[in-house]
């Protein structure tokens, strides 16, 4: 049942150490900004995010001292953010000490030493930062006060109280649950031992205090269980057989309760709630910037093009009767080598699916705590690999499916028992390569299955007849299968996002198989690799296009300084000055066979090199720069020179990704086409 934390420790340490070194740099930058009295909202947010992730990861591995320190630092940063990104200079020193204290505890963890408690004095100072930020004097001592009757309070040691306070600080609720043993209960199998065991699944039991005194049932003994939990009262009560057991908060009501983590997440500053889990995993072998690999791939593509030219030249020689057998042989060999080289470069970008998913057990662990459900994760992913770019995009979809499975699909232990199932539910993740180009990944649970009728009723449509229709229904934006959004999935993304990622972004497939009472399986088929291009998005003749940043240079076109040489052709080419050189300027819409309805060329132009000479293509408007997923066009009907492929910019419409040098060459009036399909030699 319990996740062996030792398995996650190495990953945790790597991650937190990286975050800490980033946090150090960010805090130093904030110090400089504070001295210069300037605002740096971005750095404040980055630092917040780093600490928030540290806090989340530390909570998962149960290092409460780090959780508390990170929590108060985070709070101070929240106020700095509200102050427009200004961290007071006086706050820098306590924050530095906070980072040191976290580092120290991370080192203790790494060496297997006992992790020392968070220094009270430091926590108080960090807390005071929060107080001044809020504009009222900082309270001394803890932010939350425990409300306990004296008989109980005297039974608690200082460390018990501290544990409760730290728990509250990390966003959990501190509760007192009273359990009254009786003969009747014992007959149902409920004794203080089984209660301990059951509640232990749902909450952290800080202390169990037996208390003498008359009870509602006529007995004279009550057990007071002091708990830290994210589970709901009703779930806890159910676990101990309901009344006469009671649950009540032990946090002093007159003081504001510590803001729960979930509320922090709802605020604008908050990073993605999946942040801690989704943050791409770093390899522990050798880290290479993906752009460098892309660079290598790009150079390879150039090599492929020149090989095609060489092949053409050799063919011309052969046609002319020259003896070329040896040359042809070398060319064949060369083609094979290029293919192998491309494969190995692509291989460099592959990450193991297992490594990508290694945070899921922690996610499950967190969900187990927050939902009070018993759940086990089974991973069956073998040695399958995925392109890093695909993995990074796919992970949020998987996290969502797993979260949904625990949150919505799995029943409570009581319900499962009643249905004759084991109390512990199973979420299973499996994957295998379906072909050399695709990977199939399944997320399944043994829960209650999707209630098609309820989903249809919510959407106000007829009950879907097939699982395909049901999936389409579930993927409607905004459809939630639950009346009230639960704490864990409520703010998460819907199935529509899972579909967007899998189908629209990655060009994969998504399917569903669900059986009432038995469980649900989602299958995702995704390509092993995709091509990510950093691109300019622009408008020309009322349509949007994209072009690879690496291929072009942008210039402004000043209509007044254009030179029009005499030309026979109507609307001949104008000349524009660029770095002291006259460059021909072609309205791009002419090459795109579209009408701009505008006099003269557009105000911006992309300069590309075409057979060694620069040429400028005028466009209407530059819309921005972004990473796009390039999808090559497979169908011969639309394999045209100058169009590298299409991409989805988020509107569900394909946007053409242009290859400007080829487009220019193909349409520059020359009858010969210089187009060499990129796939030619090495596909």
């Amino acid at each position, binding site marked *: 049942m319990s996740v062996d934390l030792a398995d996650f420790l190495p990953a945790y340490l790597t991650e937190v150490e990286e975050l800490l070194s980033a946090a150090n740099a960010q805090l130093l930058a904030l110090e400089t900004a504070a001295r210069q009295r300037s605002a740096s909202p971005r750095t404040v947010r980055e630092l917040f995010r780093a600490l928030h992730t540290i806090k989340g990861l530390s909570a998962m591995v149960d290092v409460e001292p780090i959780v508390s320190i990170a929590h108060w630092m985070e709070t101070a940063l929240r106020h700095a953010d509200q102050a427009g990104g200004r961290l007071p200079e006086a706050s820098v020193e306590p924050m530095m000490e906070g980072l040191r204290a976290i580092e120290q505890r991370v080192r203790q963890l790494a060496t297997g030493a006992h992790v020392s408690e968070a220094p009270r004095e430091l926590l108080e100072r960090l807390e005071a930062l929060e107080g001044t930020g809020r504009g009222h004097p900082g309270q001394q001592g803890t932010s939350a006060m425990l409300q306990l009757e004296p008989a109980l309070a005297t039974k608690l040691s200082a460390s018990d109280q501290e544990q409760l306070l730290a728990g509250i600080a990390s966003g959990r609720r501190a509760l007192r649950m009273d359990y009254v043993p009786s003969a009747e209960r014992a007959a149902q199998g409920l004794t203080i031992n089984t209660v301990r065991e059951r509640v232990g699944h749902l909450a952290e039991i800080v202390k169990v205090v037996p208390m003498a005194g008359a009870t509602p049932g006529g007995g004279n003994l009550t057990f007071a269980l002091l708990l830290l939990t994210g589970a709901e009262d009703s779930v806890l009560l159910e676990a101990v057989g309901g009344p006469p057991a009671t649950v009540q908060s032990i946090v002093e009501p007159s003081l504001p309760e510590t803001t729960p983590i979930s509320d922090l997440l709802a605020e604008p500053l908050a990073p993605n709630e999946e942040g801690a889990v989704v943050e791409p995993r770093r390899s522990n072998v050798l880290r290479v910037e993906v752009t460098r690999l892309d660079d290598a791939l790009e150079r390879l593509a150039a090599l492929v093009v020149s090989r095609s030219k060489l092949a053409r030249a050799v063919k011309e020689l052969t046609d002319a009767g020259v003896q070329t057998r040896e040359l042809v042989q070398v060319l064949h060999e060369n083609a094979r080598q290029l293919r192998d080289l491309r494969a190995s470069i692509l291989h460099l970008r592959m990450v193991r699916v297992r490594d990508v998913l290694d945070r899921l057990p922690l996610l499950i662990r967190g969900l187990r705590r927050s939902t009070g459900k018993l759940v086990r994760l089974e991973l069956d992913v073998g040695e399958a690999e995925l392109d890093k770019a695909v993995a990074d995009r796919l992970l949020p979809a998987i996290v969502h499916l797993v979260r949904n499975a625990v949150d919505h699909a799995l029943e409570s232990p009581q319900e499962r028992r009643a249905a004759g199932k084991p109390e512990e539910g199973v979420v299973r993740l499996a994957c295998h390569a379906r072909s050399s180009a695709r990977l199939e990944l399944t997320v399944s649970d043994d829960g209650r299955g999707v209630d098609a009728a309820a989903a249809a009723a919510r959407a106000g449509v007829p009950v879907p007849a097939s699982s395909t229709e049901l999936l389409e229904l579930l993927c409607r934006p905004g459809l939630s299968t639950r009346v009230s959004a639960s704490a864990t999935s409520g703010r998460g993304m819907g199935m529509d996002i899972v579909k967007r990622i*899998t*189908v*629209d972004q*990655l*060009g*994969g*497939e998504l399917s569903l198989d669900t059986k009432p009472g038995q469980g649900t399986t989602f299958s995702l088929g995704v390509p092993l690799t995709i091509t990510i291009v950093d691109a300019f998005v622009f408008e020309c003749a009322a*349509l949007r296009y994209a072009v690879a940043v690496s291929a072009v240079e942008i210039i402004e076109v000043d209509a007044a300084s254009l030179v029009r040489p005499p030309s026979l052709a109507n609307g001949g080419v104008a000349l524009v000055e660029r770095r002291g050189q006259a460059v021909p300027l072609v309205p791009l819409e002419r*090459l*795109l*066979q*579209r009408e701009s309805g505008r006099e003269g060329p557009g105000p911006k132009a992309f300069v590309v090199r075409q057979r060694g000479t620069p040429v400028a293509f005028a466009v209407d408007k530059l819309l921005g720069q972004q990473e796009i997923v390039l*999808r090559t*066009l*497979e*169908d*011969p*009907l*639309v*394999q*045209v*020179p*100058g*169009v590298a492929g*299409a991409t*989805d910019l988020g509107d*569900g*419409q*394909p*946007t*053409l990704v242009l290859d400007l040098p080829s*487009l220019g060459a*193909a*349409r520059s009036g020359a009858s010969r*086409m210089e*187009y060499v399909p990129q796939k030619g030699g090495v596909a």
Partner: protein
Amino acid sequence: MSTLHVVFKVAGAEYAIPASEVMQMESFTSATPVPGAPTHVAGLMQVRGRVVPVVDARARFGLPPVDRTLDSRVVVGQLGSRTVGLLVDSAREVMKLAPEQLQPPPPMVAEQAQGFVKAVAQVGPRLVMLIDFSRVIGEEKAHGG
């Protein structure tokens, strides 16, 4: 054995295609034009996450263009590994056609229709032309190269 066919209209005439070749039907909003593609290619559409070319049936059949309406449909056909859409005026019917209902097209029609019409079916008073989907979407390359 009669088989299910999707029936669609282009310029008033009725055409049919085996339902087994149809992946799905989409209403038509717009297609992204592809410069340099054959003139009968209306452009690109996204269908179930795939980017597919759409062939304009009117342009393909040499008919004058019309404004697209709410009735306009894209019949998405699957042909081997290719997925191609066919933009038609409307498509709102499926019917069963038995082999004995199908007649080879009269020679003049066959010639005029450039082989797009495989057979002609008499359905009550209606004449429905069975199209050769692979011919219609064309094997032609986008560029002569």
